[in-house]
């Protein structure tokens, strides 16, 4: 962080030959980068802005008024969504929260165990185990999900909460991140000192290593939470009872029905708007004390 500050501050003080000929404003604000990034932000925010505005429109306004003109139907849309199949939308949102929250929590624990073991111990087969676990990233999800479905069907577990929760607990990328964080955050001599004092390996992990790994584990949790919240394919294959659907699958079925009845469009749009709110809120809150860079395994910042 400090080296970055130095690097950023240095050229502002001195006069570099490359930028001296520009007008005074350009010397203080780099126009091209700022404008490029603003264009990028407009591109990414456009559909989000659209869904926010479109969710305020009534069914007739959606097709008749200019797209970015707010409508008058938001409360009515909410009421309609609430009334649709006795408020099943809220059940979907609860389900998504359950799948993502519980799934990510258990997944983070498993990743922490695995990453800690791979980072702090030297044992036979360590690299082989790590590589085999990582190869899971390469497996296309459909290829796993279909035999998973067939096998769970033999155990009478399909169309249940467990059928969506269990296959998502072992996350190769979570293991990868955990190993990096554990290697960076837990000094070997601290573990050694714990052993000298006669602490058990489990006690060293829970009392010494785990607290040091917490910031990294928050990242693994977030990563996995987003991955499960956004997952569509696995519930699409596993579930048939729509009371167990997560939001993604629920919205998809709503869109399928809406394709023939444009009256359902407003429901789909309002539902999509409410579906993106929780995660956007999560990221806005969390970025105050958590850096995006952690997501790519950066440990030095």
């Amino acid at each position, binding site marked *: 962080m400090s080296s970055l500050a130095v690097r950023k501050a240095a050229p502002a003080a001195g006069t570099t030959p490359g930028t001296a000929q520009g007008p005074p404003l350009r010397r203080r604000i780099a126009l*091209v980068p700022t404008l490029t990034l603003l264009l990028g*932000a407009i591109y990414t925010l456009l*559909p989000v802005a659209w869904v926010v505005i479109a969710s305020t429109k009534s069914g007739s306004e959606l097709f008749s008024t200019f797209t970015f003109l707010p409508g008058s139907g938001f409360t009515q849309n909410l009421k309609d969504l609430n009334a649709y199949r006795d408020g099943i939308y809220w059940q979907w949102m609860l389900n998504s929260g359950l799948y993502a929250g519980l799934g990510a929590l258990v997944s983070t624990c498993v990743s922490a*165990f695995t990453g800690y073991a791979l980072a702090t111990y*030297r044992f036979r087969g360590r690299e082989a185990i790590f590589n085999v*676990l990582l190869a899971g990233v390469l497996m*296309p999800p459909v290829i796993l999900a*279909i035999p998973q479905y067939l096998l769970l069907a033999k155990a009478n577990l399909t169309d249940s909460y467990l059928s969506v929760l269990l296959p998502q607990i072992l996350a190769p990328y979570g293991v990868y991140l955990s190993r990096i964080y554990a290697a960076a955050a837990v000094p070997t001599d601290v573990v050694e000192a714990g052993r000298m004092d006669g602490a058990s390996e489990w006690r060293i*992990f829970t009392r010494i290593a785990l607290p040091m790994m917490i910031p990294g584990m928050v990242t693994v949790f977030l990563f996995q939470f987003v991955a499960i919240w956004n997952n569509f394919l696995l519930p699409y294959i596993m579930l048939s009872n729509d009371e167990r659907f997560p939001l993604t699958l629920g*919205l998809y079925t709503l869109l399928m029905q809406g394709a023939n009845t444009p009256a359902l469009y407003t429901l789909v749009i309002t539902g999509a708007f409410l579906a993106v709110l929780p995660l956007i809120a999560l990221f806005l809150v969390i970025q105050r004390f958590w850096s995006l860079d952690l997501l790519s395994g950066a440990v030095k910042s």
Partner: protein
Amino acid sequence: MSSTAGRRSYGVKGAPYAFLVPAAILFALFFALPIGYAVWLSFRKVHVSGLGLGAGARSEVWAGLENYRDALTDNEFYDGALRVLGYGCIVVPVMLGLALLFALMLDSERVRLAPFTRLAIFLPYAIPGVVAALLWGFLYLPDVSPFYYVLDRLHLPQPNLLDGGPLYLALSNIAVWGGTGFNMIVIYTSLRAIPAEVYEAAKLDGASPLQTALKIKIPMVAPSLVLTFFFSIIATLQVFNEPTTLKPLTNSVNTTWSPLMKVYVDAFAKGDIYSAAAEATLIALATLMLSFGFLRAANRRNRQEAAG
């Protein structure tokens, strides 16, 4: 690291394996077993005896490579693979090009609003692929789209974005929109890890920001470019959610648009899990071959650069 500790204290030897037990069980149950089962099924087929009526008339028998031969000669499967190839040729370069561009811009001096734009460009990562496809799908519909409104006002031709060639652009745009932010963060993180001293010499030589970016920054972040390229290719081969979600909005996306969609249709709509398993195994093999081939090529290049 702790090799000396392993000899010094008892009870340590088994500890790493104990920590690995949960992951090992989950891997066996939800990765190894399903993959093995899929491969087993791909060599099987249903044999119908007589009229196929009554118990025991349908039995599972060994099929050898028959399912694979069928899959490889299946035009639908082949067409899907070609479509995904075309789609990938748009998505991967555009997405990574934009990610690199934004990362370099974030890393440049005196840039304003960087925290805001960085978060904004990253935002689509938090939006489910299905919802992203749904949002863009509506933006592609002439009746509700602001783009068509603008085109109409300017009396410009209005292309049908959900058909023919433009459909590829429409689908690619959804993937680019969703994936650029995450890749930008990965590249930006490695840009920030470049030590300041590296730039000093360039400064003294009077290198412009563009020259610094091309000659110093991009070569220095090459490893993370390789990584993002690798993951983007894998993600592209597995495209499923976006075309599936756009399907209700257009007739041009058929149920077997991508190979994985065909696997799904064969397994669940047609109930032919044996053909589906063979196709799935082929896709997995193609993914693995592509991945390892790419990693080997990348490693060879790195070694050459290190030597030369």
